């Protein structure tokens, strides 16, 4: 019974915590530019994420080690540093985008420019991590994040042509703007398959003290949670297709985003969008900040746990403080949050191989996985993802130049 409740909570937190500025923005751009044609990209990203997250959870449950722990232990200190530097740089950009998302949501409500909110928001994030425990943060942010279900409601209320929507689940080629089309595909995949999501999931599993008895729970949570979350992303695309495309509005500036829910909900649509964006991004900033700090702490072997008092993990506390400051800095200097989002999502896609290649080895390592090593299907999917991400890594830069709008 207790396990069933945990599974339910796990699914709920996965759904509530799924959307953030990357998935919202890329889905909005996809819908506004290509109607329902890009639904397949979101589904593909979601499917890959399901497999990766399930495996991260399994690794943590069986070995009681996180992905970062295992990468250092199995591949050595030098590879860990290489991974840390590359992932941290990219994830830091994503953090800047998410903090920007919270600030932009506050700008929508108050009319005060997003840059002014960077410092107060950073302080809020810091306070929550300083004082909060892991479950408080994770569960709290995700339950509040359920407000994002409003996108699904909006998609239904707007009566899309469901047959056309279903067609969008299959890949089709665009009639024009090919570079732009593929650029959005790359950003959608980068937004869906964020390395920090996998890493954070394994850290969370260890924080929650999962063991081998959680293998089935893990499967349920990862599959159902990520699936429902993916449905929300698709909903954002559908809404955008119905709201922006007929009017000829290209989603190129963050101020165009809140208009998305007005057709469906009027004034409350505007408010709901701001609330959804703000809460979803706040949740993401907490996860990202913690995950970078976890990567550092786990790789160096420090004591780490969100559930301990800061004085008991002084180095860990220092690291996340510095991370928040750096992330906030990106917003304070006025980098456009939308542009930062799209850029960081594409860059994420390009750097995925660095994390996923070692991950494949770990999932087949008997010392870590015992008898729960990857089966043929899981390995096949990861190999496919590696292949796909290498292609993404190569095409991202040219596409950014020619298709980035």
């Amino acid at each position, binding site marked *: 019974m207790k396990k069933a409740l945990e599974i339910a909570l796990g699914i709920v937190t996965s759904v509530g915590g799924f959307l953030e500025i990357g998935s919202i923005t890329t889905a909005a751009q996809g819908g506004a530019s290509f109607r329902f044609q890009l639904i397949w990209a979101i589904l593909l990203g979601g499917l890959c994420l399901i497999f990766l997250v399930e495996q991260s959870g399994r690794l943590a449950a069986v070995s009681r080690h996180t992905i970062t722990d295992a990468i250092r232990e199995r591949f050595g200190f030098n590879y860990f540093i290489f991974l840390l530097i590359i992932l941290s740089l990219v994830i830091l950009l994503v953090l800047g985008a998410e903090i920007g998302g919270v600030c932009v949501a506050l700008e929508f*409500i*108050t009319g*005060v420019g997003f840059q002014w909110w960077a410092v107060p928001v950073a302080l809020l994030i810091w306070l929550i991590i300083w004082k909060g425990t892991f479950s408080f943060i994770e569960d709290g942010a995700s339950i509040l994040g359920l407000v994002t279900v409003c996108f699904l409601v909006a998609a239904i209320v707007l009566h899309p042509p469901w047959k056309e929507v279903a067609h969008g689940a299959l890949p089709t080629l665009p009639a024009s703007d090919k570079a732009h089309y593929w650029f959005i595909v790359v950003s959608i995949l980068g937004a869906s398959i964020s390395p920090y999501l996998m890493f954070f999931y394994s850290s969370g599993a260890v924080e929650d003290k999962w063991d081998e008895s959680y293998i089935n729970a893990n499967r349920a949570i990862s599959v159902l949670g990520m699936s429902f979350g993916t449905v929300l992303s698709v909903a954002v695309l559908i809404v955008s297709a119905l709201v922006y495309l007929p009017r*000829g509005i290209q989603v190129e500036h963050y101020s165009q985003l809140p*208009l998305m829910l007005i057709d469906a909900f*009027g004034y409350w649509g*505007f408010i709901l969008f701001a609330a959804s964006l703000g809460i979803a991004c706040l949740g993401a900033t907490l996860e990202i900040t913690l995950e970078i700090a976890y990567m550092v702490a786990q790789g160096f072997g420090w004591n780490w746990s969100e559930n301990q008092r800061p004085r008991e993990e002084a180095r860990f506390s220092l690291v996340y403080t510095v991370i928040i400051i750096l992330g906030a800095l990106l917003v304070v200097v006025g980098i456009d949050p939308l542009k930062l989002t799209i850029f960081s999502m594409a860059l994420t896609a390009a750097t995925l191989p660095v994390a996923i290649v070692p991950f494949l080895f770990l999932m087949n390592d008997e010392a870590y996985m015992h008898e729960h090593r990857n089966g043929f299907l899981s390995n096949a999917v990861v190999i496919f993802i590696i292949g796909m991400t290498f292609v993404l890594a190569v095409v991202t830069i040219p596409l950014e130049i*020619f298709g980035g709008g």
Partner: protein
Amino acid sequence: MPVMLNETERSCAKNIRLRLLLLILLASLAACSSQSPADKLHKELRTVVSWAATSRMVGEALQNGKVLQGYAARTFEAAGRNLQEESRTIDKSADIPAEERAGAQAQIARLEQIVGQLKSMVEGKDNAALSQQVEQLKVEEQSLKSSLRGDSSQP
């Protein structure tokens, strides 16, 4: 020593081959990216239409109390800025015929004016005259859209 010379020669040849490859790659990429002047104008005008439509949607929403004043003001400001940016981009594109350039810039200037008015009205909390401006926006927007449609039907 013969062995070392061969290695130097080999790496030298490799360097040259690599540079040649890079050059070909860059040239082909440049070739792919070069749009016709008509395409370029079309692309910029789509952005202009996008901002016109955004401003109209915000204006109409504001009239019906569906968005907050602060947000509307900032969006009109962003629209104005981006329209200016588009005007500058079109101005710099020497390969677009001067006549078309001038026509586009005139349309953008009119839009800029309307959006500017909307911004001051919102800041001054003068919502009464909004509808007139929003109507004008609609007119400009429709004319731009039909000219875009006309363009795309031409060879």
